[in-house]
């Protein structure tokens, strides 16, 4: 269980957290998304006990397993030595320690790397090893900050499977990523951070409800003038934002238009992320407060 209430953290003139609330229940995976500087890493540092908040309360069950954004491993030591250290620091020893190391190495497909110094591994392999050091001791709370950066698809799937397994065993998982389809794969509930606080929190379906998807239509010739004001023309295609792509396309066809190509897209996490988490300087005024998005 991770409970953070009204966390505030300032670094001089910079307010990193400004009333950050987030609760992750046992067995739940929360995908924490937000632009750089939204407060995700500071939140993780506070939960991990590395930084003291200026105000607010944080409560965590046990010692959380932490896989920070920046690779943090002993480069001259082997993968096995790194794993043994973190398992030992969690109180494992003897046969239990060896079993835990072997289990996580197999699950994350690093068995073949166990006796190689970490300094000789690729960036993606180091990330996997780092995630392994965070999960080797089966903590009751997990903080994973972009653990799949640089991972190939098979390694990414292996890592996501271990995260799902740990959650299945009752761990509270806070998973930060900019690669949003991963959160679908994890069936994670979402928390969107912006400007030091969580501005939206809930199941994916509820957060996406009411967000615009789009219909992109191509014509044999130029886009008909009558349709241009309904959307934006990009590379000869008309992109129409809509919450109901099928109904929008149906209306076009009923009006007698004959597109030669159609692409319909339902709202995705990328749309949510763009609408909610993009800094105000980048987001359009209309996008800054979307209708129908449940705020907290």
């Amino acid at each position, binding site marked *: 269980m991770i409970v953070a209430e009204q966390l505030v953290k300032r670094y001089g003139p910079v307010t990193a957290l400004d009333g950050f609330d987030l609760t992750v229940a046992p067995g739940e995976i929360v995908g924490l998304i937000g632009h750089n500087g939204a407060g995700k890493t500071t939140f993780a540092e506070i939960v991990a006990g*590395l930084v003291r908040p200026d105000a607010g309360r944080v409560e965590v069950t046990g010692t959380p397993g932490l896989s920070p954004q920046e690779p943090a491993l002993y480069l001259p030591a082997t993968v096995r030595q790194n794993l043994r250290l973190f398992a030992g620091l969690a*109180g494992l020893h003897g046969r239990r320690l060896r079993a835990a190391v072997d289990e996580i190495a197999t699950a994350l497909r690093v068995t073949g790397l166990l006796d190689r110094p970490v300094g000789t591994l690729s960036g993606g392999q180091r990330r996997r090893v780092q995630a392994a050091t965070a999960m080797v001791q089966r903590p009751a709370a997990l903080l994973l900050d972009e653990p799949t950066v640089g991972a190939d698809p098979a390694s990414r799937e292996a890592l996501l499977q271990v995260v799902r397994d740990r959650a299945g065993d009752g761990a509270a998982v806070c998973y930060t990523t900019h690669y949003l389809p991963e959160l679908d794969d994890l069936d994670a509930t979402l928390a969107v951070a912006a400007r030091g606080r969580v501005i939206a929190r809930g199941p994916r379906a509820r957060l996406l409800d009411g967000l615009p998807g789009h219909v992109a239509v191509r014509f044999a010739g130029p886009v008909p003038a009558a349709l241009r004001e309904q959307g934006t023309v990009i590379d000869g295609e008309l992109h129409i934002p809509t919450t109901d792509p099928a109904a929008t396309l149906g209306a076009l066809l009923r009006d007698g238009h004959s597109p030669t190509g159609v692409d319909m897209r339902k709202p995705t996490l990328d749309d949510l992320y763009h609408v909610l988490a993009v800094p105000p300087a980048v987001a359009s005024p209309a996008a800054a407060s979307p209708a129908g998005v449940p705020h907290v």
Partner: protein
Amino acid sequence: MFDRRRRGRRLIRIGALVRHNLGLLVREPGPLVSRIVVPLLLMSLMAPLYRAAMPDGGTAAAVTGVGVTFSLLALSIVGTSILSERTWHTWDRLRATAAHPAELLAGKAVPAVAVLAVQQAALFTYGSWILGLRIAHPALLATAAGAWILALLGLGAAIGTLAPSHGALSAACDLGSVLTTCLGGALVPLAVLPGWARAVAPVSPGYWAVTAMRAALSGEPGTTLRHGAVLVGLGLAAGALACWRISRGWGRSRLL
């Protein structure tokens, strides 16, 4: 029951840290070996020179002088082991585990103390067996060496936590060691140093180490313990500075 279990976990964690840090030291044995073997060679070459210049106590001057000089150079081993944690960003990961800061420091200190103790033991054993050094009071010498090791540990930790880079650490250790040993009378006996150098000698940790060890070799408990106490105080002060710096961490947030 609960306390015993908690103590057991603490020992497991310290054991894991000690094993790990020893493993890291052994992975790069070059600095360790050179800081043990080179002083033995230098001591052999310098002993006749010291004996000729100081008929009374020349061997003791050679052994303690070279010993203190090279144990100061071993500061870089302690400093590097801490600075590396910073450059690898692993220190914060250790802080995020269940290990108490005192356990983390113990895990760092035990291998470093072992290295320094092996170095001191090698120097004095070699001096005694090969160069004929007379040790009047071995237990007193062990006390002086222990106090010196504590001071080195604290100084090394302070340098390791304050140095901004490996280059800066190396420069600080080399320059600091040479200045400290020269001023402290380790390489050149204090009696032949200029007056101003003799006046500032007590500023140097090397001075207290050399005088404590020479007093121990001649069996003078009072001087040994007094000067040893200064070394312990220095080690504790430097260690406290290192602990304070470590407790602030070096997380990314500090750079915001």
